[in-house]
């Protein structure tokens, strides 16, 4: 499944809950959001880390198909 950067950026740039996401995804997204709020230039790095996580974790990947 390919996930576009716009969706990943949106997820990381908003404070919205992801109620249907598995715990791993919620915790990772929360950590990346904090890093990005502290250092906005980390957004690109955050998107890359989130994309890498989705490649590795099928449960997180599955939820992205529904977002």
């Amino acid at each position, binding site marked *: 499944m390919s996930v576009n950067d716009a969706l990943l950026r949106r997820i990381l740039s908003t404070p*919205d*809950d*992801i*109620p249907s*996401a*598995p*715990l*791993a*995804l*919620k*915790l*990772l*997204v*929360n*950590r990346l*959001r*904090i890093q990005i*709020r*502290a250092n906005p230039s980390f957004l690109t790095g955050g998107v890359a880390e989130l994309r*890498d*996580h989705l490649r*590795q*974790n099928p*449960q*997180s990947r599955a939820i992205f198909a529904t977002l």
Partner: protein
Amino acid sequence: MKNELLTLEEAAERIAAGAVMSIAGEANLLAQLPKGQWIGGSTVYFMTAQGGAVERTRLFCSIFPEGTQATARYVPIEALSSIPEGYKSGGVSLVIIPAFSQAHARFAQDGADYPHLFDQPLLGWISGVHLEEIGVVKPVVFDGATGQRHEDGAVLLHILTAHAAEPKLDIINIFQQGTDEDLVFTFPEVGFGATTAQVHGKDVNLAAYLTEKAVDTRLPLVANYAGAMINVSFQNVDLAAGKVDFYAPVFPGVEYRLAAPQGDYAQSFSAQAGAGGAAMLSCNCILNYLYGALEGKTTGGYTGPVTFGEIAYILLNQTLVKLELAA
């Protein structure tokens, strides 16, 4: 997955037969177990099928299905970030860390930053001792592969189950964020303790503020992590020193709200847990055991060690962690 309270001899037999197990119990019992595919941690508190209990003569064994492959290993403090390097593709990893150790503090503060930590289920707990033995007896963990006891570092069991089970790791947190805007805190720095917090954008001495507001510190602070409610529990409020200690670190950039008041803990767990739990690996927090007076009470079907901290990827407080191996 099967959960059983076993005698030392029974547990040793299972290990000798090749069972993959997570084992909790008295350190002197764990020290007598043979080498094998297991890890263990010290505690004397358990949630059993009959309810919460102190147990010093038997071991609580969570036994993975036959055919499960596992690698037990010890990770010293300086190598904690290598925890995910042992992940087996499609598997799950268990971790146990001794309470009050350097590894406990380091994992709690840095764990979320370890590369690939969230790529597959990682769960476990912080080992403890009887509350009357804190400061006298050290919590320990055991690496079943070597039989070695450790007072610091982490023991890991990297597991791959035989059938097409998809491990599902989740938490049950009976606490919700409260709505009192005067009890919303942010912190300037990471730490297991704080002197200063911000409330309504202004610095306050946290110990004095909590005392003035007569805050019930049996309730945790609750942060919203993208929809997951994550607790930080109060350990001590020292008004004279102006310092507050926590059982998990607080982090800058996170908003913490005091939890809404909690009624009957056992009933709340049962309501949220439903009928499940019997065939899951789970652990619950010593603070829930104490504050909820869980001795003799059940929490749905969930059984397992009562711990000095729970791990579901990161360190948690006052939370039930559960792993389900779905068919």
